[in-house]
């Protein structure tokens, strides 16, 4: 048989064969596979995706990764500095990382008691330690924490705030809140944009003109003041959960116009394509024509727009909570945490309270990079091939 093969076609070198298979895979790949392949080549975008994935993972399982609860206080360590695990100190080295314990001392000047590190006391860092009982994902009861220290001590990786709450733990819980608010806000604005932009773009004419005007008005009012106006209207006695959902609603209500415009213009441009007319003549309802015939032609662009609108949601939530009009304690989000870091004095005395800001920057940066990568990947003409 091998001889026959050789006679039928000129021998194919290994490289040629690999090339042929690559081409075949390429031609047979679906649109989404192609987008993924193009996206994968974008190093910065992949890094962004990894960062977001890690954040989402840590946030989702915050009850496991955070050594303490979001409101747990350590009254012995208020405004405490970060405690970095170390391997060596004046008393020698150890293979297991440790932190120094603290003892309470009276400040000679202010006479207030304060915690100072005790270089002779070692607290060894251990993984999978027993901690406060909590419910993972809201229902799975666990009491094992990812890490902690032995000897009944506490480890505050990123220090504590003025109430002695662990900044590291709170940042993880805040990550969950802030990211999820962003997701919910984007989803709500997407649904609104789909309905409003869909109606405007599909029907055109007077309906379109009216909707365009209204969209214009919402776009022209400065976003944060508008958010603030809506947020100020939230009754002060609402519970944390109510405020949380109200916030997602507000973010969604203000965020839709940009996306609606995009959907509208795309729909308008393909409204008179033959396949749309054919569907209309066949008697399909408008909602069906929009959903099954028109939307799929630009789904990838919508996804790009959704990803790009994330940073605005996150920054808006942070800004609103920062000035006290967004989420309110005991809820914890990046903005709520940064509320404690409003003055220059904080930069000088307790700079670790700014760590959540690094998360904000990182998340926004990552979303922007992923959005840019997706935009390039979703554009079928971007490929040189």
């Amino acid at each position, binding site marked *: 048989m091998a001889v026959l093969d050789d006679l039928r076609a000129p021998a194919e070198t290994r490289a040629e064969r690999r090339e042929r298979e690559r081409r075949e895979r390429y031609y047979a790949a679906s649109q989404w596979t192609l987008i993924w392949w193009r996206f994968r080549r974008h190093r910065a975008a992949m890094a962004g995706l990894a960062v977001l994935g890690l954040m989402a993972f840590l946030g989702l399982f915050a009850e496991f990764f955070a050594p303490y609860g979001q409101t747990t206080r350590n009254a012995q360590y208020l405004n405490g500095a970060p405690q970095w695990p170390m391997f060596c100190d004046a008393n020698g080295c150890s293979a297991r990382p440790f932190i120094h314990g603290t003892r309470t001392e009276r400040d000679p000047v202010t006479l207030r008691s304060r915690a100072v590190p005790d270089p002779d006391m070692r607290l060894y860092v251990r993984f999978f330690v027993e901690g406060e009982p909590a419910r993972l994902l809201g229902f799975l009861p666990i009491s094992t924490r990812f890490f902690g220290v032995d000897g009944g001590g506490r480890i505050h990786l990123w220090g504590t705030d003025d109430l002695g709450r662990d900044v590291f733990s709170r940042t993880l819980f805040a990550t969950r809140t802030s990211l999820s608010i962003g997701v919910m806000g984007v989803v709500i604005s997407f649904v609104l944009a789909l309905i409003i932009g869909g109606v405007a773009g599909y029907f055109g004419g007077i309906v379109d003109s009216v909707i365009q005007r209204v969209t*214009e008005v919402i776009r022209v009012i400065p976003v*944060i003041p508008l958010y603030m106006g809506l947020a*100020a209207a939230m009754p002060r006695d609402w519970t944390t959960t109510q405020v949380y959902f109200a916030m997602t609603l507000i973010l969604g209500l203000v965020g839709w116009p940009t996306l609606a415009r995009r959907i509208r213009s795309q729909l308008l441009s393909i409204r008179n394509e033959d396949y749309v007319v054919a569907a209309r003549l066949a008697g399909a309802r408008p909602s069906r024509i929009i959903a099954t015939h028109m939307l799929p032609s630009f789904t990838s662009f919508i996804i790009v727009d959704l990803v790009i609108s994330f940073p605005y949601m996150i920054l808006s939530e942070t800004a609103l909570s920062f000035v006290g009009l967004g989420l309110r304690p005991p809820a914890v989000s990046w903005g709520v945490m940064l509320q404690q870091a409003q003055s220059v004095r904080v930069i000088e005395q307790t700079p670790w309270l700014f760590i959540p800001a690094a998360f904000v920057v990182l998340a926004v940066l990552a979303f922007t990079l992923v959005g840019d990568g997706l935009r390039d990947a979703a554009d079928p003409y971007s490929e040189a091939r």
Partner: protein
Amino acid sequence: MARFVLERLLGMVLTLFLVSIMVYFIMELPPGDYADRFAFRKYSGTGVTVTEAMIEEIRRDLGLDRPAYLRYFDWISGIVLRGDFGMAYSFLTPVTNVLGDKVWLTLGLLFATLLITYAVSIPIGIYAAVRRGSAADYGLTVFSYLGLALPNFLLALIMLYCANRWFGASVGGLFSPQFENAPWSLAKVWDLVKHLWLPAFVLAWSAVAYQLQTVRATMSDELNKLSVVAARARGVPETRLLVKYPARLAINPVVSTIGFDVNRIFSELPIVAAVLGLTELGDLLLKAYLDLDMNVAGAILLMLTTIIVVMNFVSDLLLGWLDPRIRMGA
């Protein structure tokens, strides 16, 4: 051109009308009405028990028992005909007194910010496009990503810290203490300029980051056009060529988004103002919201939005003037 201007003008008036309705809607949104809050402010701490009848009376006095559209009509006609924005309940004076010359301060800050934005982003964006792929271009891309990711209040805090550290002195606020309540003079204006750069810089930051990307992208596209090749073939000197063909077109998207930039700046203003301790509109708006003094909040929101709408109009006119295609198309 006259027709073009007229059309845009009509569109602007219509938008302003709709905006005023929207703003009024937001003013009406908080639960309870002025009568409740008014009664609370007036009698809190006096030991008087506020009865439902008293609130009802206040409500009648203030005309709050009438339907919303009538009250809207009163409100807007007061503003348009008499420049009367109603009472600021937390200050017990007319809103116009509370706002005072803060409108001009805000406008000053706005123009300073826009000046910085365009003076920085246009030349640097063009430079980055011309030197595409260079280290400078790469650095600028990184900067603009960071610029968009850094929350403005954080930048404000960092700037404040650096300014305190290296320049000492009071950099927060808009005036030095001795000029705070002084009448306007040349010295006061100079003092304002010395304080204005910091908030203007902070507010310009993200606008610069955004426009830098826009200018660079448009400029890169335009540089590949045949007109550029043709001009180069004719031997037009490089600088002249850049200014005459691609740069002219590269500023179009910038001009068309002036209103957008103003929107962005006003959007950030209240928060930056809170951090930097500025006393003009932004900070006042925040306080008004926190106190639910909705007449003040509404007046400020309406003014900010009006400025944006007018700037949109200006940007339309500028664009029509710059680009004949738009003028003729309209």
